[in-house]
């Protein structure tokens, strides 16, 4: 056990565990952060008491004074419980500020007990309150970080899902495929798109593929290289590749970048790309009246 500036708090927590637990829970309900609409009393009590137990372990084994560090080893159990409780509560719709208030509500009952025990030792009372306050504040900050990390994870997950959605290979006509690219192309995505495309060429016995860049705003060397690689792979499979949707802006930018498309056929719009593709497989689009 290390030196602790909160020895009275530690003995209070151990000896008056139930009193503090009850105090904490009733402060939660006084402040309206108990959320009995989302948690049964039993669940709330279990969470609260496991937090309190983990806190005892942390104070007993770790530093609470000037070297207090929530990320250190003795506080592992507490961090784990905080993460569990925060994730469970956020999943049920508890807000970050309610979560922080829930944790901070522990101060009241501890201060109250301290005041009783150290009534005539003002110096020690202030010191213990000071240090235990810092510890509990750190818990609240940590909960907020867990919240943010959880949101980030969800955002990233959604982004991945969106990327999967946006790479369909569509058969426009017999032997003609189109691949409308949308958004950004990093290496992982380019690889996925390419595999998908080559597989479809084989299945459908396609002869022409239109890769449309209308939905791609920025064509840098990375995107250009993926495009050119895709075009040569398509050609190796015996099909032709047309890259369409090269806007005037993108054309100028590519020239200044020094990207040379070589033999690859490019078209400014998907419309001209389509007419060209149909032509190559022996079809023509004609106006009915003029037939």
């Amino acid at each position, binding site marked *: 056990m290390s030196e602790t500036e909160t020895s009275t708090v530690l003995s209070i927590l151990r000896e008056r565990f139930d009193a503090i637990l009850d105090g904490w829970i009733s402060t939660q309900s006084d402040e309206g952060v108990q959320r009995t609409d989302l948690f049964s009393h039993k669940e709330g009590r279990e969470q609260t008491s496991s937090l309190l137990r983990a806190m005892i372990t942390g104070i007993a084994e770790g530093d609470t004074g000037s070297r207090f560090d929530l990320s250190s080893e003795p506080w592992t159990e507490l961090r784990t419980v905080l993460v569990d409780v925060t994730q469970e509560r956020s999943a049920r719709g508890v807000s970050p500020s309610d979560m922080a208030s829930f944790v901070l509500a522990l101060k009241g009952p501890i201060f109250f007990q301290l005041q009783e025990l150290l009534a005539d030792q003002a110096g020690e009372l202030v010191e213990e309150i000071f240090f235990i306050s810092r510890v509990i504040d750190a818990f609240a900050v940590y909960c907020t970080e867990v919240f943010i990390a959880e949101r980030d994870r969800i955002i990233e997950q959604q982004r991945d899902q969106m990327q999967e959605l946006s790479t369909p290979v569509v058969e426009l006509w017999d032997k003609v495929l189109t691949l409308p690219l949308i958004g*950004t192309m*990093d*290496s992982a995505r380019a690889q996925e798109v390419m595999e998908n495309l080559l597989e479809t060429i084989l299945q459908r016995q396609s002869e022409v593929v239109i890769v449309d860049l209308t939905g791609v*705003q*920025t*064509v*840098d*060397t*990375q995107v*250009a*290289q993926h495009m050119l690689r895709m075009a040569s792979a398509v050609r190796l499979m015996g099909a032709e590749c047309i890259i369409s949707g090269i806007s*005037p*802006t*993108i054309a*100028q*930018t590519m020239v*200044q*970048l*020094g*990207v040379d498309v070589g033999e690859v056929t490019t078209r400014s719009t998907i419309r001209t790309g389509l007419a060209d593709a149909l032509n190559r497989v022996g079809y023509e689009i004609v106006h009915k009246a003029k037939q």
Partner: protein
Amino acid sequence: MSVPEGALVSVCVLLRDRDVLHARRVAGQELEKLGARSVKKTRFVTAVSEIGRNAVMHGGGGEARIYSQVHPPCVTVVCRDKGPGIADVDAALCDGFSTAGSMGRGLGGARRLCDQMEIETTVGKGTCVTMVARL
């Protein structure tokens, strides 16, 4: 290079491809706010994309700082990494030079795409590229 013109708008960490997308998006938004035309914006965004990705790929990650100024209107992006540095900047600027087996057009292309670009690099210490787009 001297202190960038204008006020610091954003600091973006560059660790992954995704971070480069974010940095270039912020740079594009700043140009839009100043009323830049679409060609100007696309060119600068592409330059930031190249330099940002170099910091991730060759520089082991870094940071992009984006500055914006209204009078005279310009956006500046300072992209810094603590990677191996570039031994021969003139060679690296040449089209086709790459130590990564890619096109090798990023550095030279980026310089053509912005209105002003400066490279400060020290072998073993890192690289700092400053790009400016003026309206």
